[in-house]
């Protein structure tokens, strides 16, 4: 065995490497699997479940599930898309996401996923949680309203920046990203040069002094939907957001 194996994704046979996750194998084959917590520079985590697919009819997170020979995967079926759409909608109502004024608009993976899935409004009631802003750091800002608890920043601080500036605190609905120390981000050794803001998929962790610098038409998702660089385009990006 040379470490190659074959899986089936939506009826299409795909060659994969042993040890790859479903998400990685699909990506190599030009099949986009939506994701928020997964990031190519970070360890796998499996928290957001946006990459949920069906393996043998059973829901599993594609970003953590290793491929197995002969695996039969649904990535683009109605049922899978409905599961993912529901998860994305729940992420929207759980926080306070006001895309129209957010400085990450047009460059936000959550917003881009909503556009890709055609979500114009959530079916669930908004929870409008009261969450503070940690703005005390001179170069960084943590807006908990927009956090989806993907944990990219926590992993980036440890794995890429060699620090432990951020971690998780609380449980259930009270779970949140917390800076390491009583003074919030300002009390940590995080700096504006760290990768924690760069990897944030939404407008939760931001570098100060950079907002709205990219004009309309030049933002990441202005012309191509999220995943468009991996698979065939699934529709025109909308002009007005």
């Amino acid at each position, binding site marked *: 065995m040379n470490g190659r194996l074959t899986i089936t994704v939506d009826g299409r046979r795909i060659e994969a490497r042993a040890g790859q996750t479903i998400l990685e194998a699909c990506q190599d084959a030009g099949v986009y699997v939506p994701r928020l917590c997964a990031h190519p520079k970070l360890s796998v985590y499996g928290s957001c479940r946006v990459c949920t697919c069906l393996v043998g009819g059973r829901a599993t997170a594609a970003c953590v599930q290793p491929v197995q020979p002969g695996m039969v995967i649904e990535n683009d079926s109605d049922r899978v898309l409905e599961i993912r759409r529901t998860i994305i909608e729940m992420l929207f109502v759980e926080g306070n996401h006001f895309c129209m004024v957010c400085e990450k608009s047009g460059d936000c993976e959550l917003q881009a996923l909503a556009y890709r899935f055609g979500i114009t409004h959530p079916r669930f009631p908004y929870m409008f949680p009261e969450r503070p*802003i940690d*703005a005390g750091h001179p170069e960084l800002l943590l807006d908990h309203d927009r956090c989806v608890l993907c944990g990219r920043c926590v992993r980036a601080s440890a794995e890429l920046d060699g620090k432990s500036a951020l971690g998780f605190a609380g449980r259930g609905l009270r779970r949140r990203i917390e800076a390491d120390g009583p003074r919030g981000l300002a009390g940590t050794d995080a700096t504006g040069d760290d990768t924690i803001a760069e990897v944030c998929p939404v407008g939760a962790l931001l570098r100060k002094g950079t*907002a709205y*610098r990219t*004009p*309309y038409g030049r933002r990441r998702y202005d012309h191509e939907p999220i995943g468009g660089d991996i698979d065939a385009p699934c529709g025109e990006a909308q002009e007005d957001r």
Partner: protein
Amino acid sequence: MTESSRRIVIEPVTRVEGHGKVTILLDERHRVREARLHIVEFRGFERFVQGRPYWEVPVLVQRLCGICPVSHHLAASKAMDLIAGVERLTPTAEKIRRLMHMGQIFQSHALHFFHLASPDLLFGFDADPAVRNVLGVAQKHPELARQGVLMRKYGQEVIRATGGKRVHAIVAVPGGVNKSLSAAERDALLADVERMTDWAEAAVGVARDYTLDNLEQIADFGSFTSSHLGLVRADGALELYDGLLRAVDETGQVIFDRLENDRYAEVLAEEVRSWSYMKFPFIRSLGPERGWYRVGPLARLNVCERITTPRAEAARRAFFAALGDPPCQVTMAYHWARMIEVLHAVEAIHELLLDPDITGDELLRSGTRREEAVGVIEAPRGTLFHHYRVDENDQVTMANLIVSTTSNNEPMNRAVRQVAEQHLSGRDRITEGLLNHVEVAIRAYDPCLSCATHALGQMPLAVELRDADGRLLDRRTRG
């Protein structure tokens, strides 16, 4: 309410931006006892920008309105430039913002004149409402209607070229702008600018002819003497983007002049009244009784000494030659003044497009953070104040906005009362046409009560006459 008094309600007021209603109380002899314009919306932006990072505010506050978002975007940006420690923008940044602002003035004034006001002016205040609307204008005056649509479109295209979108565009960031014009964008706008200038001049003529042909009828219509407030350049010329505050009283005497924007609170105060969500600003030195003032196109012409662009200046001179020395107090002359500003805006657009800075690439400056700043701009409807305090964490701790329409609150109420007294008093039957007179007086100010509401034929207007016991005597509906 006495035994036989009546209360008339016009709700909502139509062909204005936003939601408002008028109540008119008549006594037993059908004489007007009280007439009020109520603003029934509450927006709360001053509260919910608190805690937000200051750079977000220029984007956040433009959601106040879908008609004049540019004005809020730029007024807040001017304040946030100062918060970011930037006193002077780069030439490119300032000119891009001016261009965007002129596009906004052009499109907003065109929208108001052609779509909202012209049916009253062309067909008469009490013409058949089936004709007295924008479709009626399109049928009877197709060329005028076409020009109105295309002029508004041109202004919107200016906004899109500068800010990326026609509505809720973003170009200003604290300390500058995020883009300038490409040569292609500039050339596309230049291609149409002369035609737009000619049409704007023709619109001045329409407004002038209407005013002069009907002067006898409209001279006293909703008119009264008042003070006027606006921005001027240091040399006294009309200034819409970045000027100094000047106010004149009812005789034209200067109350304050060339006042720096951040001193506005020394000369202006706001009064709260229980029956409206809109405050009543007044000039401190005159007190709340006498200190109310007007803003907007007529007020701006009354406070400035000249206009910097030639065709608009000629139109300004013709305006005062026909109506007498400033201050002009004819409420319906707002329309003529508004069209003179349309002409000025498009002339300014032309000048800016020919300026090499408009395609420059020096966009941003930086400075040392401050805690407090005021941004003032002349929005289409009048002087717009944005005042903020920001803490050391970059979060807004205080916001105070005096929106143009707020300054015109007392004048609009006076106009409503006067028109009601002139046209409704003593009549025991109130027709739709008579009630439209009240709305015409309000429309002269082009009030923006917040979000756009105009939708021909679908706008419900309900007027109810009730006796003292609340029994329905008469009811008229429209829409």
